[in-house]
C-alpha cells in the first residue's frame, strides 16, 4: 500500500510539470512559452534559462521554458515560425538560423520571424598549447603559409559556425590547415590542444575558458571586433591586422506577424534582463559576450550574417538550396 502511494505521488508530481494553463487577453496576461532548440544543459539552454529568469520579472508573467532539441535548432525554428503570432510562443536562435537555409536543412531563416533581441554572441577564437612555438597569430599564419596542410587544427563538423570561422581565416589569408573534425562539437578541442594531440583548436572563449584559466592553453586571436570582457588579455584578430570576424550570436524570436507593441514589450523585458546583474555575472563567469541589439540592429546584423555565411558555404562547397 505504501509503495502504491509513493508511485501515485510520483505520477501526480510529473503530471503537474506538464500542466500548462491557457487563457486569452491583453499581452502578457498569461505565461509565455520559450522554446529552446537545444538539449537541457547545453550552452543555449543555460544562457536562456538565466536570461528568462530575469526577463519574467520585467514581463510580469512567468516564462515557461520548453526544450525541443533536434537538428541544431532546426526543429524549434520550424515550430516557432508556425506558432500563433501573439507573443506567447517565442524561442532562441544561434548562428544556425543563417546556415540551415543555405545548407538545405530547412527552407526558413530570420526573415520568417520577428526578431525581439540579440542578447549574446560567442565569437570564434584560435587557441594553442601554452608552450607552442607561435608567439602570435602572425607567426602562426606565416608558418601555415610555409607548410600548407600540415598544422593540425581541431574544429567541429563541416558547416558548423566553429568550422566556418576557421575556414574564413584560411580563405582570407590563403592558407590551408589540416582540420580535424570533433564529433562532440568544439568542446573537445581545448583538451586535445592541452594534451598535444593537435597544434591548435578553433573554439569560442566560453568553451576554452577552463583550460585557459588552468594555464594549459593560450589564445592567438579572438574573432570579434573588440576584446571579450572576461578575457582582457586575449587579443582579437583585428588588432593584429587580420580582418577576421566570426560571431555566433543568439537572438530571441517571435513568429512573423507578432504585433509591434508585443515585440516592443518583449524587447524591453529581455533588454532589462540582459543588463541585469545576475545575467552579467553569469556571462562573465562563463566567458560569454552580452549584447542588447533591438529589432532593427538585429535585422541588420542577421542580413550581414546571411551574406557572410552564404558566401562562405559556397566557397567551402556546402551551399545547397532548401527544398
Amino acid at each position: 500500500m505504501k509503495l502504491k502511494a509513493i508511485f501515485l505521488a510520483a505520477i501526480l508530481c510529473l503530471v503537474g510539470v506538464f500542466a500548462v494553463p491557457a487563457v486569452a487577453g491583453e499581452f502578457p496576461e498569461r505565461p509565455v512559452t520559450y522554446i529552446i532548440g537545444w538539449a537541457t544543459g547545453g550552452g543555449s539552454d543555460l544562457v536562456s534559462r538565466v536570461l528568462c529568469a530575469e526577463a519574467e520579472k520585467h514581463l510580469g508573467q512567468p516564462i515557461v521554458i520548453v526544450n525541443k532539441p533536434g537538428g541544431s535548432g532546426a526543429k524549434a525554428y520550424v515550430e516557432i515560425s508556425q506558432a500563433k503570432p501573439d507573443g506567447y510562443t517565442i524561442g532562441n536562435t544561434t548562428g544556425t538560423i543563417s546556415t540551415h537555409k543555405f545548407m538545405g536543412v530547412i527552407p526558413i531563416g530570420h526573415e520568417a520571424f520577428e526578431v525581439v533581441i540579440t542578447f549574446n554572441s560567442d565569437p570564434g577564437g584560435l587557441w594553442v598549447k601554452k608552450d607552442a612555438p607561435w608567439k602570435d597569430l602572425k607567426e602562426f599564419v606565416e608558418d601555415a603559409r610555409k607548410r600548407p596542410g600540415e598544422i593540425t587544427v581541431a574544429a567541429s563538423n563541416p558547416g558548423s559556425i566553429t568550422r566556418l570561422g576557421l575556414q574564413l581565416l584560411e580563405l582570407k589569408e590563403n592558407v590551408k590547415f589540416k582540420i580535424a573534425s570533433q564529433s562532440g562539437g568544439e568542446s573537445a578541442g581545448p583538451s586535445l590542444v592541452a594534451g598535444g594531440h593537435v597544434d591548435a583548436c578553433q573554439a569560442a572563449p566560453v568553451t576554452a575558458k577552463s583550460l585557459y584559466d588552468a594555464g594549459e592553453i593560450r589564445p592567438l586571436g579572438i574573432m570579434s571586433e573588440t576584446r571579450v570582457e572576461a578575457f582582457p588579455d586575449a587579443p582579437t584578430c583585428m588588432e593584429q591586422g587580420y580582418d577576421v570576424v566570426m560571431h555566433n550570436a543568439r537572438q530571441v524570436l517571435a513568429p512573423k506577424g507578432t504585433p509591434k507593441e508585443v515585440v516592443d514589450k518583449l524587447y524591453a523585458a529581455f533588454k532589462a534582463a540582459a543588463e541585469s546583474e545576475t545575467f552579467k555575472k553569469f556571462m562573465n563567469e562563463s566567458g560569454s559576450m552580452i549584447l542588447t541589439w533591438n529589432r532593427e540592429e538585429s535585422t541588420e546584423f542577421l542580413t550581414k550574417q546571411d551574406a557572410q555565411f552564404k558566401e562562405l558555404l559556397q566557397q567551402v562547397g556546402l551551399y545547397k538550396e532548401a527544398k
Partner: protein
Amino acid sequence: MSLLAALQAVFTFKMIALIFGGSALGIIVGALPGLSATMGMALMLPITFYMPPSEGILMLLGLYTGAVFGGAYSAILLNIPGAPPSVMTSLDGYPMAQKGEAGRAISLATVGSTLGGIAGVIALIIIAPILAKFALRFGPAEYTVLAVFGLSAIVAVSGKSLAKGFAGVTLGVLLSTVGMDNFTNVSRFTFGSIELMSGINFIPVVIGLFGLAEVISQILESTKEGIITKAINRLLLSAGDFRLILKGLIPASLIGIVIGVLPGAGGTIASIISYNHAMQSSKEPEKFGTGTPEGIIAAETANNASVGGAMVPLLTLGVPGSSPAAILLGALLIHNLRPGPMLFTTQPVLISTIFVGLLVAQFSLLLWGLGTARIAPWILAVRKEVMLPVIAVLCVIGAFALKNSFFDVGIMLVSGIAGFFLNKLGIKPGTIILGLILGPMFENNLRSTIEISGIAPVFTSPICVVLWVLTAAMILYPICRMLRLKKCESE
C-alpha cells in the same frame, strides 16, 4: 579545502535525505525483478534536470549503489536475481534461505556489499586523481582502441552465445550510425526527418529495452509467484561469519574495482569472476552452490566494489563503464559538466562531494539492509496488475520528458517491443546499449585520428599497445579457460 567544502555540502539534512532516499529507492528497484539500476536511474534522470548538479548526482549515486545491492533480496528470498549483478548471489543465497537462514544470508550480503563498496570508493579517491592527470594523454587514437576494448569486453560476456552477443552489439552500432555524420555533413538513415538528424537518443532506447520489454514479458509470460511466508530468522552474524567476510574482502574488492574500472564490464562480470575466484581458491569448492557464506560474500562484495571502480573512467575520461554510469554521464552533461580531466580542475568541490556522497551511500546500505530484512518479502508481494501499468506509464513519461518529444516515446515503444523479441532470441539488451554508446566513440575517434595523422597512432601509441594487449587477453581468456575445462573433463 575542497574536501572541507564537500563535507559541508554532504552533511546537510537535504543531502543525507537525498542519498538515503536514493539508495532506498535503489534497493526497491534492485529487489523488484525486472527493474534494474539502469532503468531506475533512467526514469529518475529527468527529475535531476531540475536539481542542482551535486544533489541530482548524489541521488543517482545513492540509487545506483542501492540497486546493485537490492537485487540480493529477491535473489536470496525467491531465487530470482532482482538485477543482473545479483545472479551469482542467488546460487548460495537461495539455498541458505531454504535452510531457514534467510536473515543470515541478507545480513552477509549487506555487510559484504557495504565493505566492498567502501573499498571501491577508497580506490576511486586514490586512483582517480592519478588517472585524471594521465587522461590528457588520451587522444582520438587512444579513445579508438578504448572503444574496441570496451566492445570486446561486452562481446566476451554477452550471455550463453557469443554470436548473439555480436549480433546485439552490431545492432547497437548500426543504430548509432543514424543521424548527421559529423565529418561529411551527410545525413545517414534519417529519411528526411529533422528528429533523426541528431541521431537516436540512447535513453528512450534504454527505457524501452529494459523497462517496457520487461513489462511486456511479464504480461505475456506471467507465472504465479507465491508470497513469502517463511520466517526470516538469525539476523545477527556470528564471529565466524565476520572472519569469512574479512577473508573474502580483499580479493573480491580488488576484482570488483578492476573490473568496474574497465568500460563495458561492471558489477555482473565482477561478481561472476569473484565467485569463480572464491570457488577455485576454496579448499571445499564442492560446497559452493549449496548455501555457503563465501559464495554470497564473494558475489556481493565484488559487485558493490565495482560501483566505485565504474566511477573512475566516467569521471576521469568521460567513458561510461556500465549502463548506469552512462546515465550518470547524461546527468553530468545536462548540467554542463563534461566529465574528464577538466572536471577535476574546474569542479574540485563537486568531485569531492561525489566521493564523500558515495561513502555515505555505502553506509546507507548498512542501515537499510539490516533494518529492512524483515519486511523485504512484502515489497516483492505487490500485485503485478498494480505494478505493471505503473511501470508502463513511467516508461512513457521518462521517454517523453527527456526532449519533450513524442518521437522519443515512439523510439521507446519500438525499442520495448523489439527488446521483448530480442530477449526471447537470447540477445541481451545491454549488448545493444553498449554498441549504441561505444559505436560512435569508435567511429568518430578513428576518423578523427585518420584526419589528424593517419591510422598509425592507433597501433603505435604506447597506451594503444597496452589496450590492444588487454583486448587480446579479454578475448583469449574465456577460450583458454574453456580449453582447460575440457582438458579437466577429459582427464
